[in-house]
């Protein structure tokens, strides 16, 4: 089949991507797209046709007394894309550059710890910072459980609440990383599409997750949120969360990659029963920590900061773990945690050096 070479190289696509992303990152993203195309769009029907084609070519070569194709030529042929694959690649690059569609949505998945998370707009894409602290927390909990079981007896599984679970990435990442049957993790989210996607991801990672995971749709800001949570699980040990923390003024300046694609409810904290479509950003809390403060209060209401209920005290494991948006927020967040019974706090930085997570402990 004759092909015009200019029409069938990756170079124009790379050039287009480079304008948006810079050369190095464009190369990386294009490589990941090509990997995806090879893995996901490997049309077996097409393959058979091309195999037939190949044997015809071979016969023609023998007939004309030409030498057999060299290894390099054969390899060249194998990396050739089918029409469907080309169409996908062109569409992907135009979505990426013109519509600012995030690569993770284009590829439809993102690895997160040991889990593989399936993605779909507008559910928040897991960030590497979240993955980083989640893994660090998992290591910490594993060490703790190990020392407990070394002291004698198998400890009961920890009941962990993942507030604002979104894709379910934190819940599933922890379920895959924690020692088998050391935790029961419940993911909560306000959005229907998030819960549906989280359930899909649970099914996708069911073989990897060594701990029980469940998802519930719930508005954590509703007045009876704490009683609903206690119905799900009467005794909570740890709350982890990547809650909305972008301030309204920051939201206006976000990249189109984020603003035009991801759910505003996952980014900017809003009061109970606000319609995100009609809300005036100027009316919202300017600090961005309103939801975190609410979460600290909720955590106290469901007994997480109460030593009597769960009997895990001290600084061996954190009881409330929340991601924050940098050093301006850590101080007020620490204060909010202290106000609701978490009498010791710690701040973790991420690999880029930003203050990223606040951990609240309950000391006796």
């Amino acid at each position, binding site marked *: 089949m004759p092909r015009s070479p200019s029409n069938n190289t990756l170079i124009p696509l790379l050039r287009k991507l480079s304008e948006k992303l810079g050369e190095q990152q464009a190369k*990386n993203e294009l490589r*990941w797209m090509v990997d995806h195309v090879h893995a996901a769009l490997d049309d077996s029907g097409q393959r058979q046709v091309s195999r037939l084609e190949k044997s015809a070519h071979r016969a023609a070569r023998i007939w004309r007394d030409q030498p057999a194709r060299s290894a390099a030529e054969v390899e060249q042929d194998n990396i050739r894309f089918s029409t469907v694959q080309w169409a996908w690649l062109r569409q992907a690059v135009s979505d990426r550059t013109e519509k600012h569609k995030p*690569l993770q949505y284009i590829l439809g998945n*993102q*690895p997160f710890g040991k889990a593989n998370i399936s993605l779909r707009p507008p559910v928040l894409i897991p960030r590497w910072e979240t993955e980083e602290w989640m893994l660090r927390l998992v290591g910490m909990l594993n060490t703790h459980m190990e020392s407990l079981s070394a002291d004698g007896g198998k400890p009961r599984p920890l009941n962990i609440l993942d507030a604002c679970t979104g894709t379910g990435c934190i819940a599933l990442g922890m379920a895959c990383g924690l020692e088998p049957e050391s935790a029961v993790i419940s993911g909560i989210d306000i959005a229907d599409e998030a819960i549906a996607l989280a359930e899909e991801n649970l099914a996708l990672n069911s073989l990897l997750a060594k701990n029980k995971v469940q998802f519930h749709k719930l508005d954590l800001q509703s007045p009876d949120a704490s009683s609903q949570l206690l119905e799900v699980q009467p005794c909570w040990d740890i709350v982890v969360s990547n809650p*909305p923390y972008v301030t309204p003024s920051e939201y206006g300046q976000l990249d189109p*990659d*984020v603003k035009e694609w991801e759910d505003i409810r996952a980014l900017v904290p809003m009061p109970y029963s606000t319609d995100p479509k009609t809300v005036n950003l100027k009316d919202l809390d300017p600090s961005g920590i309103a939801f975190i403060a609410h979460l600290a209060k909720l955590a106290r209401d469901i007994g997480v900061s109460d030593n009597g209920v769960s009997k895990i005290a001290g600084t061996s494991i954190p009881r409330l773990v929340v991601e924050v*948006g940098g050093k301006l927020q850590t101080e007020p967040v620490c204060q909010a945690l202290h106000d609701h019974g978490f009498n010791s706090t710690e701040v973790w930085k*991420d690999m880029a050096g930003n203050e990223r997570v606040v951990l609240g402990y309950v000391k006796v």
Partner: protein
Amino acid sequence: MSAACRSGVRWLLQKSVCNIAGWRLYSAHPGAGTAATAAASKTGLPLGSELAGKSSLSARIHDKLRVLQSKHAVMAQRMSEDISTLSRDELAKISKDLSDASLVVTPYNRLLELYGELTELQQMIDSGDASLRSLAQEEKQEVLENVASCERDIISELLPKDSAEKAGAILEIRAGTGGDEASLFSGDLLHMYERYSQTKGWRIKPISMNKEGDMVKEVMVEILGRGVFGALMFESGVHRVQRVPATETQGRVHTSTATVAVLPHAADVQIEIKESDLRFEAFRASGKGGQHVNTTDSAVRITHIPTGIAVENQQERSQHKNKEKAMSVLRARLYAIERERVANERRESRNKLIGTGSRSEKCRTYNFSQNRVTDHRINFSLYDLEGVMNGSSLHHIIDQLRMQNDLNELTDMG
């Protein structure tokens, strides 16, 4: 025929030959210590070995084996004397060296005996008596088989024992002087090692690659399998190519180079890296991060502060996986440094054939117009360039290097 019966026949044959021709009996079984000097001929090969046909042991290897043999004799002598004068440590060392050396020396002595037998048999064959000749021919075939198995024993004793040599390796190829042609040659080398690995059943995983078409500026791959490092450890060095490049229009021969570095894969070797000595950076990260941006830039750099070694990786979409990969590269680098340090200490005292493995020296030349590959460290030339470049003949060179190196190490004992 049983062994006793066979030697009986031979003895009879010898007798008759001697009687007929009036030759003196050749001293067929010389003592182990004296055989080396007695048998040394001008070529450096022991007498009789030329009758054994194509041998995998070269003259230089025989030299080394003879040195080893005399060392063995000296050590055996010391052990047979009054061992009460030796300290406990000395005794332990000598007996260990002795047992190491005898693993090679015993089959070597047997080999020399076999060469002696061959010489006799050849004399009989040349003697002209038809009945004797056919018997001697038959006998010769058997001796030749024994010679081959003896050589195999010697070679297998010289094969890797170091645990690092059994492990996988990280192979790094960089184009040197020569511009595009050097990049093309780096690509050829990569191809060669890929094919060689395929024949050995090893798996290759790319770590980082800087290539355009056939031109490879710099590539780093991980090779997993048994004995990878042991086989490839001598590949480190400057590889030189002499050919008419594809980019040359006037048919002139160019000389270009590529450097190859092989590091042992440290996965199953214990080295200690303190967490506090490491600095992790998401090296293009800036700004607020977190929910504020949606980056696909997952590049990670790890710096080992005491040594100043920095490793970066951006192959994977997950920052976490990039970090793990970068860590394994860093571990391999640190391990290589440590290994190099230990090896340097040992190397001081020994006349090393293989060279330091550092990149400053030219180790091998690929001459396309003469269809020749020469390894300068052991002066070994192979006239099968195509076979080497497609990986099928590379093992001839590697085996030679391997053996020379092991012999050196053995003869340096004590």
